């Protein structure tokens, strides 16, 4: 492996406005009379480097900042402090419950994400590949995504993120809800992609998956990286948390 960082995260902090008094309308704001927002730190002074072709697993408890770190790396969230440098392209991050538009049909989602992602609209080949890989029928893809089961959403989401060859593949828990057959198929596909030299960031709660895919891993806790190193070692640390 060449020592050529494709992702460089330097001292990055991210904070969100947290609304913990339940003021979600102007009407409430008038009666409440105080700013309902407090700043909450989600990522606290994080530095990490990922080399080209490396597969890095990210493990940690719920709410430890894994998804926020991924989105910050992808440029979707802007850090309040620090710097993120990326020398490559991303596929869309399709986590469970976010990524696909609920009101649109499967086909409309495919068209939209491919268009936004910058591949040619008329790329029927890509659409065909997505349909084939997801094993979703034509009638399913014509339904709005809100009617899908969570497994179907995962299939479609994962198939779309694999549709284009990009430099960095980000997988955020998408595999957890697929059935066994699909999970195995995805693992094969990920290995294939990895062999082509794509950098992979893999968030999961299943150490087995991380071990299969990742070379290195980081363990996150409360917005900070507490352990980093070879995947096997970090997975052991992760299991000790519980």
């Amino acid at each position, binding site marked *: 492996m060449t020592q050529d960082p494709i992702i460089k995260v330097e001292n990055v902090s991210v904070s*969100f406005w947290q*609304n913990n008094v339940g*003021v979600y*309308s102007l009407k409430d704001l008038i009666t409440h009379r105080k700013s309902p927002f407090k700043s909450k730190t989600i990522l606290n002074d994080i530095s990490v480097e990922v080399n080209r072709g490396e597969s890095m697993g990210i493990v940690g408890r719920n709410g430890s900042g894994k998804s926020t770190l991924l989105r910050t790396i992808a*440029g*979707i969230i*802007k850090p309040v402090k620090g710097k993120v440098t990326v020398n490559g392209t991303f596929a869309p991050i399709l986590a469970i419950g*976010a990524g696909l*538009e609920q009101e649109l049909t499967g086909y409309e989602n495919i068209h939209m994400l491919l268009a*936004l992602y910058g591949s040619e609209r008329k790329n029927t080949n890509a659409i065909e590949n997505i349909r084939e890989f997801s094993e979703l029928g034509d009638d399913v893809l014509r339904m709005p995504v809100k009617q899908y089961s969570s497994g179907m959403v995962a299939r479609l989401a994962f198939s779309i993120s694999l549709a284009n060859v990009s430099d960095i593949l980000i997988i955020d828990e998408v595999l957890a809800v697929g059935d066994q057959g699909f999970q195995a198929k995805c693992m094969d596909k990920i290995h294939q992609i990895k062999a082509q030299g794509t950098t992979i960031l893999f968030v999961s709660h299943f150490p087995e998956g991380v071990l299969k895919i990742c070379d290195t891993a980081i363990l996150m806790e409360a917005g900070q990286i507490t352990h980093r190193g070879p995947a096997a070692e970090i997975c052991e640390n992760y299991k000790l948390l519980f």
Partner: protein
Amino acid sequence: MVGFFWGFIKPLLYLLIFIVVFKANSGVHNYILYVTSGLIMWFFFSNVTGQSVGSIVGSTGILKSLNIPAYFFPLSETISELFNLLLTLIVFMVIMHWWGIVYSLQLLLIFPCVILFAIFALGLNLLLSSVNVFFRDVGIIWGTIQPAIFFLTPIAYSESSIQSQYHLIIKCNPIYYFIKLGRTILYDPAPPSWQMWSHCLIISAFMYIVGQFVFNRLKNQFISAI
């Protein structure tokens, strides 16, 4: 295409109502042309703001999965509604022939007028759609005050039919200046004065700057709030 037909049917429906209710007492020469020119402008404004308010909240999936500026969503609503307005204008320009519109090069001035109005609307859309991320009743409140603004703007009635002590209220309404400019171009035989142009220019620049400022202050917090 549905948007286009709406852009066409809604003004026609209002036009029919206004002819029945207001025409006889309006004291306006060629009332149909007077109302139509105002209604086309108003419905552009009402449609574009109504659709943009929820545009950021409605794109949660894309915003969370791709690095796309949230700015594009109110912008694309504004552009698509502007496109509908141009189609509506073309259709109405043909129909308005029977209602006594005078075809001349002056009608082309409607394009810069509509662009200024769209910049104003974009500024307001940026403001409404970004605040709506944090307070979800912005759309409801906006839908409630819209009819009030509509009737405060001289569209169905003429400015001169209002008693002079109330003129200040009408002049405080920014929409008034755009409707007036558009109507002068489509309805009056005289070209609009430079004061009318500069009013619209200043108002739209101001609204855009305010909208962009608020949007920029809020945009980094969108992801956590949608």
